[in-house]
């Protein structure tokens, strides 16, 4: 582990929250993509019948 010195808390906080936000936006996008795809497949199935 690198010697973060006196600002260890700040640097790790910055990295922690940033990665959290990145993971959040990716997770949100993937979830929305899946839900919409499912809804579309259902709608198309209904429409083709």
């Amino acid at each position: 582990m690198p010697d973060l010195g006196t600002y260890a808390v700040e640097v790790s906080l910055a990295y922690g929250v940033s990665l959290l936000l990145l993971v959040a936006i990716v997770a949100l996008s993937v979830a929305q993509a899946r839900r919409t795809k499912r809804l579309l497949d259902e709608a198309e199935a209904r429409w083709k019948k």
Partner: protein
Amino acid sequence: MMEVLLRVADLVCARGGLTVLEGVSFEVSSGSALVLRGPNGSGKTTLLRTLAGLQPAVAGKIFGTDDAVAYAGHADGLKGTLSVVENLTFWGGLFGFGDIAEALEAFHLNDLAARPAQSLSAGQKRRLGLARMLVTGRPIWLLDEPTVSLDAASVELFGQAVRRHLEGGGVAVIATHIDLGIDADVLDLSTFRASTPQGGVFDEAFE
């Protein structure tokens, strides 16, 4: 042959992204009227708004409507705190058409002239709303269900006003279900219902 004031060639209109009418073509020559018929939702209002230029047509051509149209929708466009005269004078001034006496006379509004519009009954407000058409001096009238909340006497008044407008060489396209006592050819919009109402680009399936 009377001069054709309004011509529409295979017009396509949409509402909320869905095509409602397609292939609409007709001509209205000066001095004649056209009544639009069809069940609710068949696109009467959509067609009138497209003719009035409030809504762009999806396809097709409209001739004769630039600066020549007066459109009366369901709302009367009146300001409650202004008097009858003030309302009419405002609209007259905006359309560059001076006298409002003829409009007041045509709809028997003379005795209500000084009253604020908010104190009028629904029927009187509707008469004032229609009186606005006279004040615009525009040849083409587009009227959407004009006789709503009008009693028989007022409907007769309205019929006379339209007849006088036609005699003066004007044109009227009216969406209505009741007979106005004027000879007008009828256009049934259900014949122009969009066969497969496409939603445009998002229509083909691509899964």
